[in-house]
């Protein structure tokens, strides 16, 4: 009996992302109980749509956080805004420019990533400060470049980002695939193993032959490029690039990583948790809105519930 229990516990504790999905499911259940079943499908569909964007930036952030204490990318919102604004302006709503626009967006991300790591490595600025200060520069560039105008995306891009197959968002399917690929990258490639090793013990990793500087560079580049991709897609999804479009993704990118069961101390990460956490975050807000609670109570409960899930998910590391 106890053996069976402990075996079950081992299975759960080996999969810390289960808590995020459990939380998402409970919150969703509570919502449709309250509405008497109406809108269950729509809520889920909307959750998938919006969670998609948190997951894209969450993947980049997760790899960065996994590098170990002190590693975080705070320039994600600015990079999203910058890449969104630049690519929308270059595409000028022409469908033919969609691919060049994507390339430009990704190059913007690459540039920000290089700049971030330049500050971190060459000037030895702690990542939290380096990415924060570069985000001011990048955000200012976006303002100067876009002059605060909301530029519409090309028709086709808008259609692609909002397309649904049998009620299931097309973009979500793509990003589920992306997450699956990144999960394989994390566990089965030299790059992924190196990130995990550095997060546990950077000195030991270097002495075991891991090219620590190169891996860190690649990780910060990856985060910035994914943020740029997210900015590009989000601009298409929400009808254009605006200057505050990235704002909520600073917290979201970190929250989905942590709630998803990735270790803040580094060296341990998982991809499914990002999806569970992103869905949970969206559904939680939806639930509290459905209950018709006041803004203050909503924020309060959001905080309390997030702490609860993190405590549960974090329980495995002792």
């Amino acid at each position: 009996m106890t053996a069976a229990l402990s075996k079950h516990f081992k299975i759960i504790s080996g999969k810390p992302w289960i808590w995020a999905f459990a939380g998402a499911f409970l919150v969703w259940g509570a919502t449709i109980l309250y509405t008497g079943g109406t809108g269950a499908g729509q809520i889920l569909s909307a959750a998938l749509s919006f969670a998609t964007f948190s997951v894209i930036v969450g993947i980049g952030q997760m790899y960065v956080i996994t590098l170990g204490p002190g590693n975080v990318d705070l320039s994600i919102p600015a990079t999203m805004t910058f890449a969104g604004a630049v690519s929308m302006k270059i595409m000028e709503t022409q469908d033919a420019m969609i691919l060049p626009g994507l390339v430009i967006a990704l190059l913007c991300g690459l540039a920000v990533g290089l700049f971030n790591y330049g500050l971190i490595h060459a000037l030895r600025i702690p990542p939290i400060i380096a990415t924060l200060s570069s985000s001011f520069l990048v955000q200012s560039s976006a303002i100067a470049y876009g002059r605060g105008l909301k530029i519409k995306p090309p028709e086709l891009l808008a259609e692609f980002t909002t397309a649904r197959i049998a009620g299931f968002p097309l973009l979500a399917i793509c990003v589920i695939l992306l997450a699956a690929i990144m999960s394989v990258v994390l566990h089965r490639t030299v790059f992924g193993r190196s990130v995990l090793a550095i997060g546990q013990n950077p000195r030991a990793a270097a002495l075991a032959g891991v090219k620590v500087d190169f891996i860190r560079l690649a990780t910060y580049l990856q985060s910035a490029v994914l943020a740029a991709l997210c900015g590009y897609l989000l601009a298409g999804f929400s009808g254009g690039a605006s200057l505050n479009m990235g704002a909520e993704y600073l917290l979201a990118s970190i929250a989905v990583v942590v709630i998803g069961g990735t270790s803040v101390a580094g060296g341990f990460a998982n991809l499914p948790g990002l999806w569970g956490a992103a869905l949970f975050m969206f559904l939680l807000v939806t639930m509290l809105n459905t209950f018709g609670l006041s803004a203050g109570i909503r924020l309060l409960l959001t905080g309390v519930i997030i702490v609860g899930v993190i405590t549960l998910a974090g329980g495995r590391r002792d």
Partner: protein
Amino acid sequence: MLNALEPFITVDGVGKNYGAVQALQSVDLKILAGQALGIVGHNGAGKSTLISILAGTQMPSGGELTFAQSGISLPGYKVDQAQAHGIRCVFQELSLCPNLTVAENARILHPAIRGVGWKARARRLISDKLDEVFPGHGINPDDEVGDLSIAKRQMVEIARAFTKVDSPIHLIILDEPTSSLDAIIAQQLLTHLRGFVDQGGACILISHLLEEILQSSDRIVVMRDGGVVDDRAARDFDRGTLVEAMGSVAKEKDEARKAAKARQQESEALVSIRPAQQSDGRRLQAFSGEIVGLAGLSGHGQTDALIDVYQQKRRDTQGPAKTVPMALVPGDRQVDGVFPLWSIGMNIVIGSMRQLTRGGLINPQAEARLCEDWREKIAIRTPDMNNNILSLSGGNQQKALFARALASDAEIILMDDPMRGVDIGTKQEVYEMIREEAGLGRTFLWYTTEMDELEHCDHIYVFRNGAIVADLAGDEVTEQRVLHASFEDGAEGGKPEAKGPEAKEPEAKEGTAS
């Protein structure tokens, strides 16, 4: 003060073990008032453990300490009791707080300095003592310790140990007090120490500078392998007898070792570097299939040399080592080696990821095969290589780290004193494996602080102060020669001054009276 040559502390059968390691085995020792006691012995002989017990920072596993004034005082003997008995310590690793001033550091030792004006009193206390011990020291009591040179820090540490406020000082313990002082300052200290002893104080002096010990001590205790092996008046010793007493009698080496392969100087060395502090043309060289030992006292630049080789730095010849894959077996497992969240298998595989990659992905079957191979080969004691690495004992963790290096495609394997804390059985297994692998053409660079391990090396470089001071091969490798070279000017028979090359160190220069 006590009467001269009365025992101040009697150490009776004191031993100490850390797990299975016997650091100190049943030591009997009398520490007499009015006598300077020198303790010598190579690394791991138990000197530091013994003084830690006297200072109350370590609890002995057995035995008794008897104080002349208050009788038996074990167990429950702690730092505060040591303080109350008038025992002061200057440790090898300096114990000052770098963010506080000299005066504030002095206050830490003396809780009695309190109330209004404590700072002025602390300032006066420490600067008076500095003036007394090191005239012309040039240290301001308001200097922050972190800003001082290492030599000045050591001077503050020493002067602080001699300060007294309310209770008298009976015993001063100095662990390598002159390691960063130049000759003049060191002499000032030794003179002051003599004065303290002549007034009836007891003193324990630990130093690797044998001349210093011979000159300043009244009595010398030689320690080896956690025990006292000799205890005589200082005048009965000279350099030679001291070195002999420290090392176990050089063992006859087996015939195979005697027929050590002659170095083919004409062929190109696989590794050839000049250590950072090396002022002459000596180089650390390793040829294919050789086991090269890096010997000497711990912390004299051997690890740095290994890291230099590993990072392919300072190689000013165009040796082939540039493209030769290397692996390192760390000595400090927790800091330099183990990935604590991973399984045993993943900890091994990280050294060979590239060879196991097919089409960009690490092949799980190949990974599992490699793990099983090495579990058998190196006998890692675990039912499942997927268990967490921390489920293994320390020795088996070390085996996993060996497997990581040996399983890789490295042709040169660097070992950073990897056998610390490993049981004798495991050691023998690993020695066997090293010889086997060397026979297959792998090259080993092996830093070790254990004399016995040097027996396995074809060629030995002895390090002192970051430079190679002796280069021994084949028959020349004897414990005595290594010991002689490890201590100052050993090979040449010693110079008349108390201080050898240390005085030339740039760091120490800063401490010169200005």
